């Protein structure tokens, strides 16, 4: 039997977390369960009815959905590795005590992720427009102008550049924090022992940062699967749906077209399932690496 003191402590504990639990319940857990239930409803607007697996069948026949899924996957596969590698290189470079102006560069690279989204999107849009600064520079260098906003391929490139610009610094901060916890004499020992700099990075830095790399990869994967801001503000999903992402499509389904709440909930759950699978795979890969 639990003593009276223990019981009272339990009650106290629950009372303390009750406000948070209630708010979480109302604004997170309830909507999540509700959306799961919704994802089995068909119909438009407010009249919907239970449709069983109809929405899931609809997914496979929906070319726009498949398009959005494909685009999202391309963003994921191309952008996340580029960003992680860039962030790593920046972190290692900016961790060098001999580098002049370290804190300036750190701040400069971190700043994008705290700037206003709309402001930067507007700026990107104008810089990369047909007659924007970027093309003017390219022409000035004797190169052909690039149809950033009007060509399906280059629009994807632009979106990738934009999210990379915004989030590289954010990931770099994690690596910098991890690097600063590494005993400096480990590198000094390697230097004395004649381990060349590339090998120090490859065989010492990378393995020691592995947990952080895994963490940032998972976070970035989730972020990119939910990509919405940049396509919405810079390219509006175009040209011809070349930058349409899953989140963007959900937005369209819910707010733009004749709303189809049930079906958009189904697409949302596709993202959830993808996040689950990819995170699981990443953990698996990390574990394999440790065993090897």
């Amino acid at each position, binding site marked *: 039997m639990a003593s009276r003191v223990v019981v009272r402590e339990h009650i106290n504990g629950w009372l303390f977390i009750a406000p948070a639990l209630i708010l979480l319940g109302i604004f997170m857990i309830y909507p999540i369960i509700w959306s799961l239930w919704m994802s089995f409803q068909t119909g438009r607007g407010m009249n919907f009815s239970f449709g069983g697996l109809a929405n899931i069948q609809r997914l496979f026949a929906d070319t726009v959905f498949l398009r959005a899924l494909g685009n999202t996957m391309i963003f994921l596969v191309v952008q996340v590795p580029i960003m992680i590698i860039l962030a790593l290189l920046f972190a290692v470079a900016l961790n060098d005590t001999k580098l002049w102006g370290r804190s300036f560069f750190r701040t400069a690279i971190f700043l994008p992720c705290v700037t206003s989204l709309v402001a930067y999107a507007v700026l990107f849009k104008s810089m990369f427009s047909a007659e924007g600064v970027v093309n003017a520079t390219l022409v000035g260098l004797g190169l052909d102008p690039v149809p950033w906003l009007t060509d399906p391929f280059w629009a994807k490139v632009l979106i990738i550049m934009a999210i990379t610009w915004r989030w590289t610094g954010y990931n770099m901060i994690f690596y910098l924090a991890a690097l600063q916890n590494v005993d400096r004499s480990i590198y000094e020992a*390697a230097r004395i022992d*004649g381990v060349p700099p590339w090998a120090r990075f490859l065989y010492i830095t990378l393995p020691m940062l592995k947990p952080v790399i895994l963490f940032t990869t998972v976070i970035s994967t989730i972020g990119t699967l939910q990509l919405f801001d940049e396509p919405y503000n810079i390219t509006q999903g175009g040209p011809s749906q070349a930058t349409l992402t899953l989140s963007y499509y959900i937005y369209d389904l819910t707010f733009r077209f004749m709303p189809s709440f049930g079906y958009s909930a189904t697409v949302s759950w596709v993202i959830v399932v993808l996040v689950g699978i990819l995170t699981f795979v990443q953990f698996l890969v990390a574990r394999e690496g440790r065993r090897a």
Partner: protein
Amino acid sequence: MSGLKLRGVRKSFGSVEVIKGVDLDIASKEFVVFVGPSGCGKSTLLRMIAGLEAITGGELHIGDELMNDVDPSKRGIAMVFQTYALYPHMTVRENMGFALRFAKVPKDEIKRQVDEAARILELGPLMDRRPKELSGGQRQRVAIGRAIVRHPEVFLFDEPLSNLDAELRVHMRIEIARLHKELKTTIIYVTHDQVEAMTLADKIVVLRDGVVEQVGTPLQLYDNPDNLFVAGFIGSPKMNFLKGIMENGAVRLPDYENRIVPTGVRAADGTPVTVGIRPEHFKEGGSAALPLTVDIVEHLGGETYAYARHGNGDLLTLATGNDRAVGSGDSYEAKFDPASMLIFDAGGLRIR
């Protein structure tokens, strides 16, 4: 094998000078210990020899080569760090063999070297463990093993034992001494523990504030310190210092009933001096004596230390041998041989 030669070596961090001109000769195969209080520049000097810190001024020769601007990996040295600095994600075997991979040593040769080092250090059963699965002493041995496989001309140790507990420290100290015999290389060893310095060194370098205070064998420093600092630093428990005034070829001790102790040391009458007497030099049968009252007694079994004072004067440490009869509050005539006194002038320099 090679010795080292330092000439006017200096180091500044910004405008702060930390090493203020060090001249030093270290013979091949010598075991040299840098000792001194915290912050005196021992680590900095060692790191300059290793090439981890740039040399601001002066010359460093290892063997016959000027090494000031040579890369650390090309100086023929290996270093063991206080924090061990093992690669945390590698096994013991990988830790020890890692550097050899980049020296273009063939695989089976690496294995042979690593196994040889493991034999010397008795690491055999631990070869497949990671550093975090080892005890402090085992980690230290791995760190030493990693240095051994490179066959350096000079080993550098920076306080290698200070993270170990007292018992293990004694054990590892003996191991390191044995290693020096077996490997026959030059060793430079940094510590602030003067017992480690006394037991290990062929030659001790006492540093203070970036300056070499004295260089000598352990017994030279113990018997014949050049100044107050070295006298106080070497020897455990510490030497006792008494105020004195020179008079007619003897020292008058104003704090001890103006007792007069004859001395062979010559200085002008009235010169204020400091008299140094080691705790173990208070012995029955000495012709001089100090009138003291015992304050605290420490019985260590084989040795008994009495802490005693005259009136309200400074506490003196006396090693009474195995005199178990001494008790707190006793009056005690602390006898000593006047010839064992060391005398220092007002500036702290020894008067001989």
